[in-house]
């Protein structure tokens, strides 16, 4: 019998541009 698909929680991912902005703000925060 086909194996039942295990339900996994979808992790929402930021877009590449959003990641870039997160990265830039981290860099800005470092004195």
């Amino acid at each position, binding site marked *: 019998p086909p194996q039942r698909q295990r339900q*996994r*929680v*979808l*992790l929402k*991912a*930021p877009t*590449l541009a959003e990641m*870039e902005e*997160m*990265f830039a703000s981290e860099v800005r925060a470092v004195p």
Partner: protein
Amino acid sequence: RQVTVQRKEKDFQGMLEYGKEDETLLIRNLVTELKPQTVSATVPCLPAYILYMCIRHADYINDDQKVHSLLTSTINGIKKVLKKHEDFEMTSFWLANTCRLLHCLKQYSGDQGFMTQNTAKQNEHCLKNFDLTEYRQVLNDLSIHIYQQLIKIAEGILQPMIVTAVLENESIQGLSGVKPMGYRKRSSSMGDSDNSYTLEALIRQLNTFHSTMYDQGLDPEIIQQAVKQLFYMMNAVALNNLLLRKDMCSWSTGMQLRFNISQLEEWLRGKNLHQSGAAATMEPLIQAAQLLQLKKKTSEDAEAICSLCTVLTTQQIIKILNLYTPVNEFEERVTVAFIRNIQAHLQERNDPPQLLLDSKFMFPVLFPFNPSSLTMDSIHIPASLGLEFLNKV
């Protein structure tokens, strides 16, 4: 007598545990500060497998924040290292690793469609708690971005070589004596003693690109697409140059050009890349070389030219005929009547009025799923990576 108890490798389930405080060090040692040579003697794409094993442990302990944080740091780390090192080796290395990480996230996602080639052991290594479909999309976008950077770097290296190597290279003995009158030896911008831009040098450069991509474990389908893209660019740059230079439009240049292209085709066959579509991108240049060599006098000649030059536009054919220069006093110029005859033949084609090719055009790239036969628990992490804070689980 000292007794050492060694942890049995068979207990290793293919996961790597680390403290959250070590994430920065992990990314530094494995991504931003890593030199590709450090892992050149290991399995190709080792960083991608290590990163997957870390993600898997974060998934195993059901820590979504840790998964988010690691993937974000990884992606930003890759972008950072590629901004700092815009060279072919580093870019190819991270393209191979980003694609491998993407393949791992598919192969071990738990989606049946990606598990068809998995062994039972590999199925045990699937993610248990999280669906990382959205991160796969981000990694796919990142791969496209890296691929474009790789092509840009390779084009920057090849571009200055193309005209001299493909058009001006005179490797057929005795042909230079039959150059058009008044153009002898004037076309070459390089001295005879300088062989840095010969066809051999261009082929050596292609060899370097190919062996770098191949050794780093870049997927064969991506290597094929990259080579096709570079051949398209070589064709466009060489043909555009030919279309603007009277000294290039002669029978002897056509002969030499066809010979040079055959060397490139031979290179493709030698690398098993003849099915990549790369050779087909050279077809306009091949037809231009043949057009230079065909007779251009009778109505039958005109018909032969029209049936042969299928990928050259009417504008390009007419331009080459207009530029055509006899090599000596025994060869006749192309007559106006002959060119009109060709124009009449080609009228029904309704070609776009395009003379030059777009040398910046890029074929869309695809990253087909390529599962690995490796199992995570067989992967060895060399001490030189400085990742001793990772615990095998």
